[in-house]
């Protein structure tokens, strides 16, 4: 009787354990060292280099990334890419998308520096930056790639390492990380200049916008280590051009802002200046409200979701162990174990 029961249970357990592998064990070794925006670039370029060019496919792939590009680098940048595609201007589109990848590098490094004490996050951000770099590497002069490879390696090591069970712990080096990442940005970004397109009718002079974006992003990562002051400061600078939208000579100013990948808040202002009537701009001067309403929601994942305090994690684990321990002790005391 007992034997029979045991066998039935065994068979049931067997069946159960067979169900287990299918679901829980279907793990695979993926690669988080890849950046979606950059991976899509590879796919788009393939479509653009078809003969004849497959615009519909290219646009379709681009559309999957448009929201991301718009929220991270500003609607103006996405708008420019839209126009490049609409014009079927392959060269301009590819050039601008490469510039976007440059901006993406900068964005990843900037946030890595902001959360530098948070090892887990910083490391993921740098891995994403490396994923971006791997995609644009073939377009870089081969004389520079070795140096850049080394810079990435050194920057990565500069993040430190908590070791395994505390064995092999290595300290982090923020100054070194800053040094290497700004070297990477200084090298890569000038190679891929961004050319902002205005509203479809207006043909912009090409030279001027090229140089400005080149310079501006470079000092950005070192400057904006602290997230708070930046948004409040920048709108004030941006105010004059906002007022003088009608006068053409100053129009270059917003272009500079467009290329700024770090602060989406500004882009919102620029966007309004371009697309809407100037009366609306006046109301949008208190940028912070507008920004929190529109963009911050989409942009939040980058900046805000990450703050899990390691101390809290440890306390939670300790508490859990405490509860389990107490439960065990209670059971013991009641002679149940």
């Amino acid at each position, binding site marked *: 009787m007992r034997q029979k029961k045991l066998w039935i249970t065994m068979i049931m357990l067997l069946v159960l354990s067979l169900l287990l592998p299918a679901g829980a064990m279907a793990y695979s070794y993926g690669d988080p060292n890849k950046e979606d925006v950059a991976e899509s670039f590879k796919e788009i370029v393939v479509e653009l280099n078809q003969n004849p060019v497959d615009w519909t496919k290219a646009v379709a792939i681009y559309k999957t990334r448009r929201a991301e590009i718009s929220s991270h680098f500003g609607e103006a940048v996405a708008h420019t890419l839209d126009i490049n595609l609409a014009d079927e201007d392959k060269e301009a589109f590819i050039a601008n998308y490469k510039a976007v990848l440059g901006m993406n590098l900068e964005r990843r490094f900037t946030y890595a520096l902001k959360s530098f004490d948070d090892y887990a996050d910083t490391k993921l951000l740098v891995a994403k930056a490396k994923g971006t770099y791997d995609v644009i590497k073939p377009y870089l002069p081969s004389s520079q790639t070795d140096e850049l490879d080394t810079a990435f390696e050194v920057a990565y090591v500069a993040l430190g390492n908590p070791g*395994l*069970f505390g064995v092999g712990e290595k300290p982090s080096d923020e100054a070194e990380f800053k040094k290497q990442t700004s070297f990477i940005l200084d090298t890569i970004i000038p190679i891929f200049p961004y050319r902002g397109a205005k509203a479809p009718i207006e043909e912009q002079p090409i030279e001027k916008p090229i140089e400005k974006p080149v310079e501006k992003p470079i000092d950005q990562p070192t400057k904006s280590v602290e997230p708070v002051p930046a948004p409040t400061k920048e709108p004030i600078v941006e105010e004059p051009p906002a007022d003088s939208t009608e006068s053409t000579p100053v129009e270059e100013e917003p272009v500079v802002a467009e290329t700024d990948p770090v602060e989406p808040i500004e882009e919102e202002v620029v966007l309004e200046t371009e697309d809407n009537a100037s009366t609306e701009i006046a109301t949008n001067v208190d940028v912070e409200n507008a920004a929190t309403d529109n963009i911050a929601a989409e942009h939040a994942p980058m900046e805000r979701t990450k703050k899990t305090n390691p101390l809290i994690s440890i306390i939670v684990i300790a508490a859990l*162990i405490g509860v389990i321990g107490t439960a065990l002790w209670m059971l013991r005391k009641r002679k149940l174990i």
Partner: protein
Amino acid sequence: MDTYKSKMTLKNITQLLIFISFSVLIYIWRWLHIAPLPATWDQVDFVLAIDRYDLLAMQPHFPGYPYYILGGIIAHRWISDPGAALIIFNLIVMISSIVPLYGLARRYTTHAKGLLIVAGVHSTAYIWTLSAQPMAETSALALLIWYWWSLARASDTSAYHWQLIPLFVFSLIMGIRLSYLVFGVGILLLWTYDYLRGKAAGYSTRKLFARLLGLITWMLLFQSLWIIGLIMSAGDISGFIKMAMAFTGGHFNDWGGTASVSVIDLIQRLYTLIVHNLLWTGLAVQSYTLVLLLIISLIFIILSFRSVRWTPPDLFARWFAVMFVVYLIFAWLAQNIEKPRHIAPLIIMSIGVLCLLLIRNSYKQAWRHYASIGLILSLIGAQASAGVLLVKQQSDEQPAVYQLANRLLQLQADSAQPIMVYTWEETRVLEFLEVDYNHKRIYTFPFFLEETKAMGPRPIYITGKALDGFIQQGAELENQTQLIDTFHSDPLFDPVYAEIRLYRWVP
């Protein structure tokens, strides 16, 4: 067990001494012929982890193998080469498993025959080659033996501390090789039995459930040890979870979707698994002598079936059978069939059972008894000599990937421009060797075309695996490639990259 009690007689001690000297000899030989240079992607992952443990950089790859790397790091304090440190750790854990294996064998047979079974298992040639590589398998195998022994002990007694030992050993196994998770079915069987045993002894259901709850808690506690270690190595929980999600998310995107599974595929897989991986590679190390000996042994066992005083298998033997089947099915459905090392546990389980069936102590006729001893001795001899040769060959032979790396170095030296090499997994070994030419992994043909165009004119090389991938994607490569060289090493050590072809790309 009481039936097989033995005294410290001169004969017994002599047998023990013979066994010890045999073990010492084979382990010294294995110690001298390790292959510390990592030759595959996975091995590079492990070796790099000794210097910097970093899951995100795939050193080692997910899910982390924390105890194995920790063992390697500790051994690394004395052994300067990180690969050698991991291998020495393998060997030490493997040697330790002699004790529980003898314990298990003694449940079913006498002292001398127990020693013979241990020698039979420890002379398995495939396990020799595996333990001489910087891979986690053999350490996990050795702990599996400890785990089986502790399960058997826990089934013998209801003492509480004996119920905890399997849980602890199992957590060690999980911290070394997570894919042995299905062996956890043994613990479920033990718990079920423990409950029935308690019921039979007249304990109340409430009390028995409380006992079970306590055991589950202990299980979670033991498992959380290595999980917490992993989480701390990633920085914090949220970082670890993000990383885990990223790693488990679509790895096969590059390949254009996972392979479809049909019934024919499954049957084909089962055939490969059992005939090619388990029998031909795992048990016989692709040697006809061993195939012959194994077949003779099997026939002998079958023919002697009627002349044996049959004792029904005990509880643990049945659990052992369940674990064998469960792992077989797991390997069949969920493991990479290309790599025979995934069925390593089945190899030692099969050889152990084969040895036991061969020399169980109750043959009715004396000649069968002597024949069985003769058979097992020749099996041990054949396995050990195959192992001796293979381990030496493995440490002397230059893996195909290394030959490739050297040839490319030469090609780079002859070329005025920097060369570019496209590969599959070979790139990881090239990375480890820090070669001074560019190389990268590529799967998608259009990306490859685009990159080669973007880089301008420079010599471009491509390995056979990458090229085969392109052809599968429908690329037409007539007159576009030119075979430069082919490199070979023994497929027993690395079945996937034992033959590497190198092509030059002619755009």
